[in-house]
């Protein structure tokens, strides 16, 4: 009996190449994505550590002399109209913005994966209902919808904003997951699993889901950035995270009216947000390239 594998030893390296090790290797080649990853880690670390180092509290009002002060050694990024230290508020705002970004994506993802997976795998009535519903939701403009939701859901906390954004966000994920499941369930390995007697739930979670992670991860990465902007937009319009809790968005809310005399209030929160979102977008793009199925079978 000819042993087919004997001549293939050159093709098999010593290390076992898992999918993730290949993705990691490819991602490391993507310089901008790696830089973004470093930037993101730094931003997160600073937002966590910053408040402990800062001599100020985010809600600590300053005296009249400290109102609307430009950046100085005392206040590196200046002070706002209530004399609060902008840098300190930036740390806290970052915590809130990142928290909203991550948790809204996370909760939307769970709902989206479950609904998308079952709709895509089983098709039929559930799928039809879901798809018609997403069509409808996609026909209502996002931001006005978020505004309505934010104004009708009672409460003022951060979690409310997470909820509001997630209520909108799961549909995109559900669509992506459904699409992946629709195409992946036609794969012969799914049929092979059925032929062997594998249960439907094991096929969904063990066979198809791991193969549909790439677009989910990309969408989640881009989603964090996108949701940070949504939170900021809601806050700017007055429907988001409510003062005195700072977020990058609501720090900009009053900045517009002070921009002629205190432009530093506009620069710092916006720049922080822009850099963070940019990093998420580059990282997402790098991940998309690294996980491109065409480059890997």
């Amino acid at each position, binding site marked *: *009996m*000819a*042993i*087919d*594998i*004997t001549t*293939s030893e050159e*093709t*098999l390296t010593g290390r*076992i*190449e*898992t*999918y993730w090790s290949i993705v990691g290797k490819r991602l490391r080649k993507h310089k901008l994505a790696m830089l973004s990853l470093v930037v993101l880690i730094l931003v997160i670390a600073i937002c966590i550590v910053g408040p402990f180092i800062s001599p100020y509290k985010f809600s600590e009002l300053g005296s009249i002399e400290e109102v609307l002060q430009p950046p100085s050694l005392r206040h590196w990024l200046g002070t706002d109209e209530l004399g609060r230290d902008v840098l300190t508020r930036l740390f806290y705002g970052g915590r809130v913005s990142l928290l909203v970004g991550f948790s809204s994506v996370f909760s939307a993802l769970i709902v989206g994966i479950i609904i998308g997976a079952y709709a895509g795998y089983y098709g039929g009535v559930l799928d039809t209902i879901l798809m018609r519903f997403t069509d409808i939701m996609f026909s209502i403009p996002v931001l006005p919808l978020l505004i309505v939701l934010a104004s009708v859901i009672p409460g003022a906390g951060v979690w409310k904003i997470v909820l509001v954004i997630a209520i909108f966000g799961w549909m995109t994920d559900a669509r992506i997951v459904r699409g992946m499941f629709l195409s992946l369930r036609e*794969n*012969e*390995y799914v*049929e*092979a*699993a*059925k*032929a*062997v*007697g*594998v*249960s*439907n739930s*094991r096929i969904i979670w063990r*066979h198809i889901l*791991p*193969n549909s992670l790439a677009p989910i991860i990309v969408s989640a990465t881009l989603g964090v950035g996108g949701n940070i902007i949504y939170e900021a937009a809601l806050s700017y319009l007055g429907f988001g995270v409510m003062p005195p809790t700072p977020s990058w968005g609501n720090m900009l809310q009053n900045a517009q009216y002070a921009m002629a005399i205190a432009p530093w209030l506009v620069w710092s929160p916006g720049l922080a947000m822009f850099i963070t979102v940019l990093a998420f977008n580059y990282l997402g793009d790098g991940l998309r390239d690294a996980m491109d199925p065409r480059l*890997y*079978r």
Partner: protein
Amino acid sequence: MKKLLEINNLVKHFPVVGGVFSRPIGWVRAVDDISFHIFEGETFGLVGESGSGKTTAGKTIIKLIEPTKGQIIFNGIDITKFGENKIRPLRREMQIIFQDPYGSLNPRMPIGEIIKEPLMVHNIGDKKEQEERVVEIMKLVGLRPEYLRRYPHEFSGGQRQRIGIARAVVLNPKFIVADEPVSALDASIQAQVLNLLLELQQKLALTYLLVAHNLAVVRHVSDRIGVMYLGKLVEVAETKELFKNPLHPYTQALLSAIPIPDPEIKKERILLQGDIPSPINPPSGCRFRTRCRYAKDICKESEPPLVDVGSGHYVACHFVKEGKVVEYSK
């Protein structure tokens, strides 16, 4: 000889959806009333071109696709109406090998796990016994057991097909549907895989249903062959008989269309006119009549039944009676 599998009037129609309300607007008659049987220990070859329904037939027989109508009797049990839970234990008895060695293995599972999964699903043995069985099967199909923690992408097409075969035989099944097992492989690898299939049949007393479009491959490994055209079986016979004495005009044309690797044999070729019609709207009467050079009015009006013309040679043609062609003329 004992019949391991008996197929009676099997029908599989797929809906074609469309229109404003996404309702079925037509049916793909993939498999349209076919009957045959497979004896224990033999290889039954099912050949046909694209759209003939051979693959659908193969998958419906092991209930990977729900039949629309008809009867499937496996090992004396009528499994036609078996639901998922009742069919699951029977999966130990019947398995399938797929065409695409790239698509049929889950890229996120190490190959050892792919081969072990059937054992886990059916709770056969404890963990250690399962691992031993995986090693044993890998050796049997010509894979190095050291590689069981490797992922499918690290293997070549031929090796992957061996992995797929290992998964199919690990449960020790009686019956295997081999769906185009070598058509995606390079010429020099095809022979290896065919040899493996032949060897495993001997060692494990397997019965095969070989679904393929390559008649030379089917001829090499099959005991009996069924020829399909547009969802219908048009001819069934023992391999030697079919090649010596093809009776259906389609079989004749199919055989004559196959190129022979010998530059000095110049054979007369029967060229079929036109394309294979769509299985959504097949011709009335005999489905082959639109391309058949012998077609007459009767072929349009009535559908010829598949009849035994002697010694297990079945043909579905109006002009074949009692083992003889009675009316072929131009």
